[in-house]
């Protein structure tokens, strides 16, 4: 900083804004058209790229190398007191790769999967504590998901898989210096400059899975997904001088802010699949979700401003009170899922599976009777889907070509919130809504 130019120094801004990759859009809307159509009840019955999310152990069952790419769009019509809250839709590309093989005689498979949102890789968006927001479905769904996994089959009846999902966190120190012009001068004539020292760091959480083949028709699956959250720290210190023309006075300004955002809870899934007919199967999963560890995306903030006015006609506000986030008091939940698949048509080079599923997603959010307004309701999701599988259709494409489509409709029944304080700034309200997710996935097998 050069003394000739120094009037304001705004220093030590530290942002740690994990901006990244979490599984929330997959938790909410599923991953892959086949698996989404079956309500996600596939922990014991997945072998495509979607196994990277549902159960990495399933990768080992891929019949050959598979490449998949697809697209999905989920419209969210979430309302409070009958008025749509314009929660952003979630849309993006999904895809992945499964490469099975053998190493020293041991069956082994490698998988990569990605959910790539259209507009951005991720979004961290924190609000004030009392601001109403759809806690589960707002920016929590604006996330990139990337996972890599390995699976092995040490014995014929056991598959084991595991890997890592990646997030990216932001950490940056910023420094601003120069001459800050204040009214009656023009602030845009300020002679300011800055420097940045920032990192986009990696955040990883584990994915683990096991699959046990009790028989040719009955399989049991167990999967674990670790916790992740985006930690947003922001602190600033401003010191120096402000003024206009030749008038300059010393000033200091400090800011502290700390936020957790887009929390992804720890999950454990236990499920089974029963092939009750050569052309039909049913799956049932139970997912435990550690919502009691949830931390709300609220900024705990404090600031302090000191200016030696030196006779200048400046109006300086008192230092505001710091904010402290309230414990959200979420509860753990067990989420049941059920899915069925029926091969409606099958011949030498062609198969047509149809699928259906259901998920009950009980809300972990307690009644919002106080100052907080984390809006949420239970969610019932009904899904349908179908696929086309073409085998050895052309000489150039000796493997399988699959096209799967799905649709999922979620109903969020009305939930009424009654405030304890009749003078509450927000007041009583009723929340409800629905969602419609559509998707398609193209697969190519070798």
């Amino acid at each position, binding site marked *: 900083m050069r003394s000739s130019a120094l009037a304001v120094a705004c220093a030590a801004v530290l*942002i740690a804004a994990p901006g990244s990759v979490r599984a929330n859009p997959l938790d909410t809307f599923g991953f892959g058209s086949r698996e989404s159509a079956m309500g996600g009840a596939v922990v014991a019955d997945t072998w495509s790229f979607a196994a990277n999310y549902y159960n990495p152990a399933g990768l080992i069952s891929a019949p050959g190398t598979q490449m998949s790419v697809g697209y999905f769009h989920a419209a969210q019509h979430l309302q409070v007191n009958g008025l749509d809250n314009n929660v952003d839709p979630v849309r993006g590309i999904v895809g992945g*790769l499964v*490469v099975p093989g053998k190493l020293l005689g041991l069956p082994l498979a*490698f998988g990569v999967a990605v959910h790539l949102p259209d507009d951005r890789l991720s979004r961290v968006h924190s609000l004030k504590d009392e601001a109403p927001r759809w806690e589960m479905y707002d920016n929590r769904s604006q996330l990139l998901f990337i996972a890599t996994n390995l699976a092995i089959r040490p014995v014929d009846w056991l598959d084991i898989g595991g890997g890592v999902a990646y997030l*990216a966190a932001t950490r940056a120190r910023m420094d601003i210096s120069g001459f800050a012009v204040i009214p009656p001068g023009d602030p845009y004539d300020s002679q300011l400059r800055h420097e940045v020292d920032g990192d986009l760091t990696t955040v990883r959480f584990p994915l683990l899975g096991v699959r046990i083949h009790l028989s040719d028709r009955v399989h049991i699956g167990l999967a674990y997904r670790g916790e992740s959250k985006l930690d947003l720290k922001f602190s600033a210190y401003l010191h120096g001088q*402000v003024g206009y023309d030749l008038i300059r006075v010393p000033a200091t300004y400090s800011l502290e*802010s700390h*936020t957790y955002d887009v929390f992804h809870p720890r999950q454990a899934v236990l499920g089974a699949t029963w092939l009750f007919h050569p052309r039909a199967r049913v799956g049932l999963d139970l997912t435990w979700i550690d919502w009691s560890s949830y931390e709300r995306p609220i900024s705990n903030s404090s600031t302090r401003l000191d200016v030696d006015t030196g006779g200048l006609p400046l109006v300086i506000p008192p230092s505001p009170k710091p904010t402290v986030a309230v414990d959200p008091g979420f509860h753990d939940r067990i989420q049941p899922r059920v899915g069925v698949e029926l091969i409606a048509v099958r011949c030498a080079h062609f198969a047509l599976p149809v699928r259906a599923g259901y998920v009950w997603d009980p809300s972990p959010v307690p009644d919002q009777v106080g100052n907080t307004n984390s809006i949420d309701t239970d969610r019932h999701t009904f899904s349908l889907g179908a696929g086309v599988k073409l085998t050895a259709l052309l000489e150039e494409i000796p493997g399988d070509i699959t096209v799967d489509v799905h649709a999922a409709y979620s109903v969020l029944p009305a939930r009424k919130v009654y405030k304890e304080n009749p003078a509450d700034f927000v007041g009583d309200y009723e929340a409800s809504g629905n969602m419609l997710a559509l998707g398609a996935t193209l697969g190519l097998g*070798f």
Partner: protein
Amino acid sequence: MSPKGPPPLAAGALMLAVCVAPARSAIASAEDLFGYGPASQAMGMTGTAAGSGFETVYTNPALLCLSHERKLSLGFTGAHYALYADGPLAPGDMHIQSVRGIVIGATLPMGFGGVLRDRLTLGVGFFTPTDVVVRGRVLYPETPQFGVLGERAQSVALQLGLGANLGHGLRAGGGFAALAAIAGKVLVATNESGQVGTKVDDQLIATYGPILGVSYDLGPDYRVGATYRGVLDARFAVEIVVRDLGSLEVPPFNIAGIAQYDPRQIQLEAARVTGPWRAAIALTWRDWSAYPGPPEPTVLCPGDKPDCAALRPPPFNFHDTFSPRLGVEHVRDAASGVALHLRGGYAFEPSPAPQQSRESNFYDNSRHVLTAGYGLHLSDPLPPITLDLFTQLHLLLPRTHTKDADIPADHPGAPSTKTHGSIVVGGLVLGVAI
């Protein structure tokens, strides 16, 4: 030259010393500085015509179609800096932090039949520093810094490519490299109850740079290749808005800059690709003259006053560079299913930065790059495993930056500063065909 290559213990110790060096700070895009892939990095960063395996996703995607096996590769690489700026008002040792990272690569032949059999191969190349995705340092111009070598971003390299054999010795390929950029807004204000609140909207955005390549076989022994890489940059942009400061009205702060930048470039190469002795010679053009420099204005002029007096960063005035490269490889079949590869190379990397005679101290030096490497490739009847090691020594040509007469005597870097130093790079990659 011994057909068995350098003593494995010494090479391993060198790699280990480099790889475990503590990582504390920022460097430039690793693949642009040091190349990508153990064979290319051992052969003077060639590979546009001589390359093979997953590393061609960067060196020349057209050559991916030479890979006919599904292969996964995993490795570790590191770089240690010893860069200096000596002078009356210079810091001496720049304490550039070392970098270490993981290399992951894969080749996946597309199992088509008929006329497409063995013609298409997909490749993935990934380098990630062990603790960051992108590191961006946008420092004040007068702060002494090695902007190209040490102060650009330490950065992940994610590359995806597809190579096609078009027949008659002609191949073509394409792909992209991806980076993450950051855009956001921070609003500081006071709420109705007198509590301060911050609203933060931070978004991670992907940026892409294309990679295109062609190669042509000149008979069974020789090949020529060309690769084009588009600009790959990552911008850091956060707007900070502070309200409720009484009569202290301040403009929005545009905290923005280019955190990482790889210029547009073209590499041409000719190589002998068969026989026990193989070699490649290449020339790389980099469009550094298009580099805007890292910083952006802190205060952006409003639309109704586009000529406000807000400060603007000084121009950087980089110029284009041409980098000659040379690589040699000796291949020896030591036993049934055992091939040994001994590699060496040289490259000259001219500096795109002008002498720092004004206020800025954005240092850069031209470099001699000496490279070496060793590969052990097993095949049937042995397990299909490969192990490749490489090392590089970057020697900076000493350079003196003399300030103009009107620069204050107490300005950093005045009256003159001599910059010099070296960089040691090393790594190893294990590959398995499955």
